[in-house]
């Protein structure tokens, strides 16, 4: 049963009844490439939800204050700010276009009235300040209300400008630009628990930055081989530990995770811990390595566990045990027999993300056909849900979906061959405290909430 609305520890993913709350984005069947959402992230309080898209734009939604007359109804998310974070660039030296697509957004913890976030494309990270302005100064001496300068000689009396309320304006301004530190494509950024530094990772290197300093960064991991012929492995994701400011992890295309301690040496090429699950020889195929490549790694909020996503599964690791994960959840095992086709159409290279709920009792990740999966770590139950316009009635419950691996298809089941592999849910986010989830389906952002009794 769901926990009492509002207070207490929310029940985990599957005891809840998930309901449609909102959907953002165009309904048009023709999707503009620039509108495809490429990252979704709640801030620390969950009041703000940021999305980045392939066109380099960032849209921030804010949760409305709860309605006093309906104390149990959750606030809706409405657009708070929209701005162009990155523009397409051209690297003249290499004759290459640099995509403006936002790869990741990470919020900084809030320290004053303004909000700060880091957004990155393939090459450049930017720190944005989002601030509100709801007052305007009036009664200047040297300029009149239109802004035109007054002739000083005409001024006969002085007055003190006063602040008058105005319509709320939300302004986003770039405060820092961290550029020219990555030769390869940035895949991750992660803010440190010290709130002063952050890391950025590309295919072969990880750099450490100070938020105040833009002209310098420290290289802390470098896996580029001296002889590029020997390159067989790249970095796929990296994250700082939520509490230990000296610890971070990075995952690789070979399905391994390395935990590094920055206190041990300046260059963390030698890991402190090495996490790898031994391969099951019976399921070995030519695609084994590709599907073992880790597309996302996330620490639990507690800092005791971390979760990795590879092509077919999500694994939970105990940081104290390197030999194998403590949990493995199959996301879409029915695709294992289709790997050759998925290799041909490149779907096998899709990078799915994963996320924890607030109490770390449930995890969520996306799949194809606009399906997403939730796993309850306590009850061991899992559910498949769909983000679709058909289930878009306000507060309509989401019906669990089932995929039929083959053979006879039962009623309400979908066969593997009918799945739409163009509808992929790569990016999902879970509110840090409440049971609210944001699911990006191509150019639409779906927000689901639990049904409050």
């Amino acid at each position, binding site marked *: 049963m769901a926990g009492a609305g509002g207070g207490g520890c929310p029940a985990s993913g599957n005891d809840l009844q998930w309901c449609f709350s909102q959907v953002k984005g165009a309904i048009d069947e023709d999707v503009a490439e620039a509108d495809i959402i490429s990252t979704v992230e709640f801030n620390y309080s969950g009041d703000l939800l940021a999305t980045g898209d392939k066109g380099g734009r960032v849209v921030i939604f804010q949760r409305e204050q709860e309605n006093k007359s309906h104390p149990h109804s959750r606030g809706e998310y409405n657009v708070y700010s929209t701005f162009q974070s990155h523009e397409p660039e051209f*690297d003249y*030296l*290499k*004759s*290459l*276009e*640099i*995509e403006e697509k936002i790869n990741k957004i990470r919020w900084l913890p809030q320290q004053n009235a303004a909000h700060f976030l880091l957004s990155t494309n*393939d090459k450049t990270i930017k720190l944005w300040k989002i601030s509100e302005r709801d007052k305007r100064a009036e009664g200047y001496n040297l300029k009149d209300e239109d802004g035109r300068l007054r002739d000083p000689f005409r001024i006969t009396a002085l007055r003190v400008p006063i602040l008058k309320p105005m319509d709320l304006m939300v302004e986003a301004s770039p405060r820092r630009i961290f550029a020219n530190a990555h*030769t*390869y*494509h940035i895949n991750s950024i992660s803010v440190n628990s010290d709130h002063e530094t952050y890391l950025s990772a590309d*295919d*072969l290197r990880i750099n450490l930055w100070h938020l105040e300093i833009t002209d310098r960064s420290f290289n802390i991991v470098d896996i580029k081989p001296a*002889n*590029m*012929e*020997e*390159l*067989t*492995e*790249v970095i*796929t994701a990296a994250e700082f530990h939520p509490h230990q400011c000296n610890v971070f992890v990075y995952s690789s*295309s070979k399905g391994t995770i390395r935990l590094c301690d920055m206190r041990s040496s300046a260059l963390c090429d030698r890991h402190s811990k090495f996490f790898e699950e031994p391969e099951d020889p019976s399921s*070995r*195929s*030519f*695609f084994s*390595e*590709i599907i073992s*490549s880790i597309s996302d790694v996330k620490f639990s909020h507690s800092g005791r566990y971390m979760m990795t996503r590879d092509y077919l599964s999500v694994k939970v690791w105990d940081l104290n045990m390197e030999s194998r994960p403590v949990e493995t959840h199959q996301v879409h095992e029915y695709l*294992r*027999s*289709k*790997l*050759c*086709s998925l*290799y*041909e159409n*490149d779907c096998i*290279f899709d990078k799915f993300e994963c996320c924890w709920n607030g109490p770390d009792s449930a995890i969520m990740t996306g799949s194809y056909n606009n399906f997403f999966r939730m796993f309850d770590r306590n009850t061991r139950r899992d559910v498949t849900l769909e983000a679709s316009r058909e289930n878009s009635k306000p507060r309509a419950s989401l019906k669990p979906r089932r995929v039929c691996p083959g053979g006879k298809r039962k009623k309400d089941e979908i066969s593997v061959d009918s799945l739409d592999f163009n509808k992929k849910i790569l990016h999902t986010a879970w509110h840090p405290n409440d049971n609210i989830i944001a699911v990006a389906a191509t150019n639409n952002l779906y927000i689901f909430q639990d049904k409050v009794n």
Partner: protein
Amino acid sequence: MFARGLKRKCADSEDSPPAPPACSLQRQSLLDMSLVKLQLCHMLAEPNLCRSVLIANTVRQLQEEMSQDSAWQVPAPASAGRGPLERLVSTEILCRTPWEQQGGHSAADSGGSPAPDLLSEPPGAPSAQAPRGAPGCAWEAASPRESRGGFQRSLDQIFETLDSKAPRAAEGLFADVDGPYYDLDAVLTGMVGAKSVPGDGFETLAPTGAPPPGVSYKRDLGELDHVVEILVET
């Protein structure tokens, strides 16, 4: 495409006389597909390094298996005639390149473009190729006339093109051959000086079947050579 994923164990099964053609045909097709993917990804504006590395590792694994198999494999008599032709079919994608044009003029062209084949070595070792011209075409030319021995010879040709004296082709994908001329990072992250518009590249690769007109073909050929140079050098 295939209903089931490719299983390595088919190469390991030793109970029945191994069915090399079917398995190696699958492997060959997978290899072809992988090499096409690698070339395509080098022609895009921003090659995805992770994807390239994963495909290259797959190619390497396929090569290893194929060379292992060739050590003990004896082509079954019944399939000898079929084998080379099937290989012809499965390598059609690769063979439908500008170099197909050279198929009839292999001798004249052997000294021409530096790396006239997706599978060939960097400029360092053209001599192995010269007598045969473009190996892809050699497969075409040689195969129909061959029997059992020919099957093995075709296999050898594949291995020579894929796997040779100094750097292996798959490894050569990331090698910096022309060190002084290319910034390694630049080569890895993009195509240095590559002028070909993706459209051109896809055109020349697409198995259209119809031979492109001569003039624009030469231009495409030049661009494709350039790209392949980079492919091999990166």
